[in-house]
């Protein structure tokens, strides 16, 4: 394994400590330096200065004592994509890596993008729903940053961002949810509409513009101005708590009314994972989603939950290429993915249905 792979495959706490339904949550703050143009309009020299200033300040932040800093321009395409797959940075961040840097801590719970759409995009993650802890953490980083850098701020508009849809708090909070029963019972469409009406957005696995795969949905606030951070996080928490309740109720309904269908689908999925020799990432994610449901319903041991999340990370297209240390085409990846899945699932015990 090369250095990059080691850093990428460092045991992520995110995967280890997951709970049912909630896959992970995230808070992101957008900040800009007052004396520079926003990234899209800034010249190379300015971006370089911004990156240097930010790097210096972040390196002195206690939270980054055990961390990695990457010059995005030095990375291979699949390495950049693997960082997106890990949610350590955004898709947009890797489109133009001119003078952009990425900080992330060894536990993968904090990451900072320098020169994304805004000069600073700081994010913290957790494997559960605990915005209080997360906010304290990111707020401390933000305090450190604003004490040491001249941050663009206006008394009326709040923190100034390159896109007015982020202005104000500059905060986007999101929760990744695993909602198989709401998909099976076809309630998900209505739920998405209801969430949108409340001013929140529902997206797929990889944020903006991505498709919902494997019953994973990301819910985040749309509005950033006119609310305090606490208001946004409280409202989001309330919404998420209700969605969790809907999902758990839907699971009971599925168990009551469609138990044979459920056994059949979970059983077949495990069969595929144990016996596959060529599997696309979407098929793999859909099968793994059913395995996670099986753990939640007690058909597989609870101890598997974290492992399943880690496997799901590992079998993504760019992760496979990092692991193999070379570019692979899609059929080569499908073969390697199947191999990784077979290896893992032969060790998984048989399903214990009620």
């Amino acid at each position, binding site marked *: 394994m090369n250095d990059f792979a080691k850093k990428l495959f460092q045991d992520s706490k995110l995967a280890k400590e997951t709970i049912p339904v909630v896959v992970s949550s995230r808070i992101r703050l957008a900040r800009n330096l007052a004396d520079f143009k*926003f990234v899209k309009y800034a010249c190379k020299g300015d971006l370089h200065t911004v990156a240097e200033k930010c790097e210096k300040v972040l390196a002195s932040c206690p939270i980054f004592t055990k961390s990695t800093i990457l010059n995005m321009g030095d990375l291979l395409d699949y390495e950049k994509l693997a960082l997106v797959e890990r949610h350590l940075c955004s898709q947009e961040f890797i489109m133009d890596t001119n003078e952009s840097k990425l900080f992330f801590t060894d536990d993968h719970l904090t990451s900072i993008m320098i020169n994304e759409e805004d000069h600073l995009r700081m994010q913290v993650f957790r494997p559960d729903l605990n915005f209080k802890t997360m906010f304290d953490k990111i707020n401390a980083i933000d305090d450190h940053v604003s004490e040491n850098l001249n941050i663009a701020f206006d008394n009326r508009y709040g923190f100034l961002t390159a896109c007015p849809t982020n202005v104000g708090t500059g905060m986007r909070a999101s929760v990744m949810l695993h909602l198989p029963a709401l998909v099976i019972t076809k309630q998900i469409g209505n739920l998405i509409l209801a969430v949108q009406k409340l001013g929140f957005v529902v997206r797929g696995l990889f944020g903006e513009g991505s498709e919902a795969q494997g019953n994973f949905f990301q819910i985040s606030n749309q509005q950033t101005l006119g609310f305090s951070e606490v208001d946004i996080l409280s409202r989001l928490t309330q919404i998420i708590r209700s969605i969790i309740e809907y999902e758990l109720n839907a699971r009971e309904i599925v168990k009551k009314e469609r138990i044979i269908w459920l056994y059949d689908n979970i059983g077949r999925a495990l069969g595929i994972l144990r016996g596959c020799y060529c599997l696309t990432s979407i098929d793999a994610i859909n099968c793994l989603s059913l395995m996670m449901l099986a753990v939640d319903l007690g058909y597989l041991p609870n101890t598997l939950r974290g492992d399943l999340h880690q496997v799901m990370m590992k079998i993504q297209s760019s992760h496979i290429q990092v692991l193999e240390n070379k570019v692979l085409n899609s059929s080569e990846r499908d073969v390697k993915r199947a191999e990784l899945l077979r290896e893992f699932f032969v060790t998984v015990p048989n399903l214990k249905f009620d």
Partner: protein
Amino acid sequence: MEKCQFCGKPATVHMTQVINNKTTVIRMCNECAAKHGLFDKEGLPFAMLSGLGEALFSGMKQSLSANGLICSKCGCTPMSFKETGRLGCPNCYKDLKLLIDGIIESSQKGTIHKGKYSKEGTLTATMDPTNSFTDTSIQKPIRKPSTEEKLNELQEMLDAAVKAEQYEEAARLRDEIKILKGSGGIS
């Protein structure tokens, strides 16, 4: 068949967005939707729309009336914003105010920042660690400027707007001042 509001081709994307109980329907063809970042190349199964879409459209509407605006620091104009979807620098919020206020009004909850203030981040101190975020008793972060300062600032802006004969803006500011005075303070 309905026509795309941008190019007149048959519309295949119908976007309804409800923000603060205001419903907006926008119809467009696939290409225009993709152009405005509302659709990926393959097309999404359901519209996972961010505020950006709505904001861009109102930005375009606004730009008609905001023509001639230009940021004195970076040269950003409503047109360049329309093209990139991004502003040029912090000063754009001053010089392109007309454009930005339109976008903010249609895409944001309010027009005044109610969150953390820069520098002395007082937010942490005001939150009781025993409270969960669902607790309604949670304290709001302390704002740095006092209500009085805020009122003075708004009054100044109101005077300027009246002077410049921007009556719509003036009316909005007047309402804001009224709300602020009525609430007896910002929590």
